[in-house]
């Protein structure tokens, strides 16, 4: 076989190999969504979306998961907002005030390690702190623990995005006599769509986390009714519902998972739309 033919064969072989992987990945995602949707739609009803559970809910009785939907939204939104107020300044500081420094290098390493820690460990850590300061399982404790879980995700994702900002941006902004803080403002404007992507990723992780919530947010059949009161969340609701022996309740677990997936989808679409609007001014 001559060299030309060999190259052509190589090209065909690897193209098909990649197509195969693509189909595999697509198939897995489709199956997951199909299982959640087909089983979830059986358990889904207007009642489930609009009411908290009644006493017999976990035995197949009436009521819904509104407590967990609202609880999850409160937990994830609170944690995402809180984490962004910590992570964004840290990242911008690393890039504007301490670029290439040992401090920034060490911080990145620490964040990477924090990213890898399983969230059950954050839960245990949060619980230990709560016991020490006398805080009970509550919305506040849940938000604080989730904040710790997502800070590394938010910070490292945003860090990579800020690192991609053109270097000329720094030079032209400083050349106009800007202080470094003013440059930081311009850098924030340039990377705002990216920050939103990072927030979205963090929100998705926060709203889907069950392990950290078990000890810290607790669980309740009541609607969220205060920062210092226990709060339900969708992943923990899925866990409890799946643990029952009743098929009707298990179907509700899939309905809850479907609601969780839909929330993430809606938030993603909203974020994409916002990103397009914010991205008008971004220098590419």
């Amino acid at each position, binding site marked *: 076989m001559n060299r030309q033919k060999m190259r052509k064969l190589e090209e065909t072989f690897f193209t098909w190999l990649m197509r195969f992987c693509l189909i595999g990945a697509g198939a897995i995602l489709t199956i997951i969504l199909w299982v959640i949707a087909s089983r979830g739609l059986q358990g889904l009803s207007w009642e489930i979306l609009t009411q908290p559970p009644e006493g017999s809910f976990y035995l197949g009785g009436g009521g819904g998961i509104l407590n967990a939907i609202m609880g999850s939204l409160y937990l994830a939104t609170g944690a995402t907002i809180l984490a962004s107020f910590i992570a964004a300044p840290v990242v911008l500081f690393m890039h504007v005030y301490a670029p290439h420094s040992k401090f920034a290098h060490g911080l990145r390493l620490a964040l990477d390690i924090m990213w890898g820690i399983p969230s059950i460990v954050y839960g245990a850590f949060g619980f230990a702190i709560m016991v020490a300061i006398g805080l009970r399982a509550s919305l506040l404790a849940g938000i604080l623990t989730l904040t710790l879980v997502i800070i590394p995700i938010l910070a490292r994702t945003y860090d990579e995005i800020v690192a991609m900002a053109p270097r000329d*941006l720094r030079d*032209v*902004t400083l050349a106009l*006599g*800007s202080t470094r803080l*003013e440059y930081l403002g311009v850098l924030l404007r*340039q990377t705002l769509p990216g920050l939103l992507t990072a927030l979205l990723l963090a929100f998705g992780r926060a709203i889907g986390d069950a392990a950290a919530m078990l000890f810290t947010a607790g669980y309740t059949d009541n609607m969220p009714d205060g920062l210092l009161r226990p709060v339900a969340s969708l992943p923990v609701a899925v866990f409890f519902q799946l643990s029952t022996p009743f098929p009707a309740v298990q179907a509700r677990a899939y309905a809850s998972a479907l609601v969780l997936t839909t929330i993430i989808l809606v938030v993603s679409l909203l974020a994409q739309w916002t990103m397009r609007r914010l991205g008008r*001014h*971004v220098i590419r």
Partner: protein
Amino acid sequence: MRSLSVRNLNVWYNGQPALKNVSIDFPSGQITAIIGPSGCGKSTLLKSLNRLQETNDQTKVNGQVLLDGANIYDARMDVTEVRTRIGLLAQKPFPLPMSIYDNVAYGPRIHGLAKGNLPEKVQTHLQAVGLWDEVQDRLKAPAVGLSVGQQQRLCLARTLAVEPEILLCDESTASLDPISARGVEELLRSLRGHYTVVMVTHDIDQAKRLADHVVFMWLGELVEHAPAAQFFNAPSHPLTQQYLAREIG
């Protein structure tokens, strides 16, 4: 008109010398062109004049740059003030990530230069660079939507809006198409007498068209500097003669 002088300036990148003992006076109100082959230190010299060199943390600077007799590298000197008084037009047009209007308004806003007359100020500077008629109906549009030539004129308007006393240009027409380049060149020519302009250029012909005064650099050293007519007609140094004859570089 402000005076700008360099005294025994040395710059190192990663321990490698990039500028070796450069001393020169830039004539006030005139256009000085710094020419030389790639890597000769002309951009380094330019960026040392407004301390933009420092944004690269592998850089070490030694020597003096005197603005009206005051060393801009003095510890008591406020670096933002230095960069406000000595503006820079970069090589590539690089708008800020905001609207056309906000790009020009940025400098006056941060320096508190426009008390209540910001729109007029923006208009004046956009007119000065011949951009007003092209953009007046879309001032709120993103600056990235402009053509490259328009962007560079916007960048000039943005730099001038800070009201600098001295203007540095780093091969500011190199990345433009020939027509836009001519436009920017015309603008620079119109600044003669109003600003002290120091420009770096690759293009010997551009230096001939624009410069009142020419500086020739070679391997980090200042080889020769003279008024343009003398420099081009009777260069004294053999390296300059060879460079102008395009035998080296």
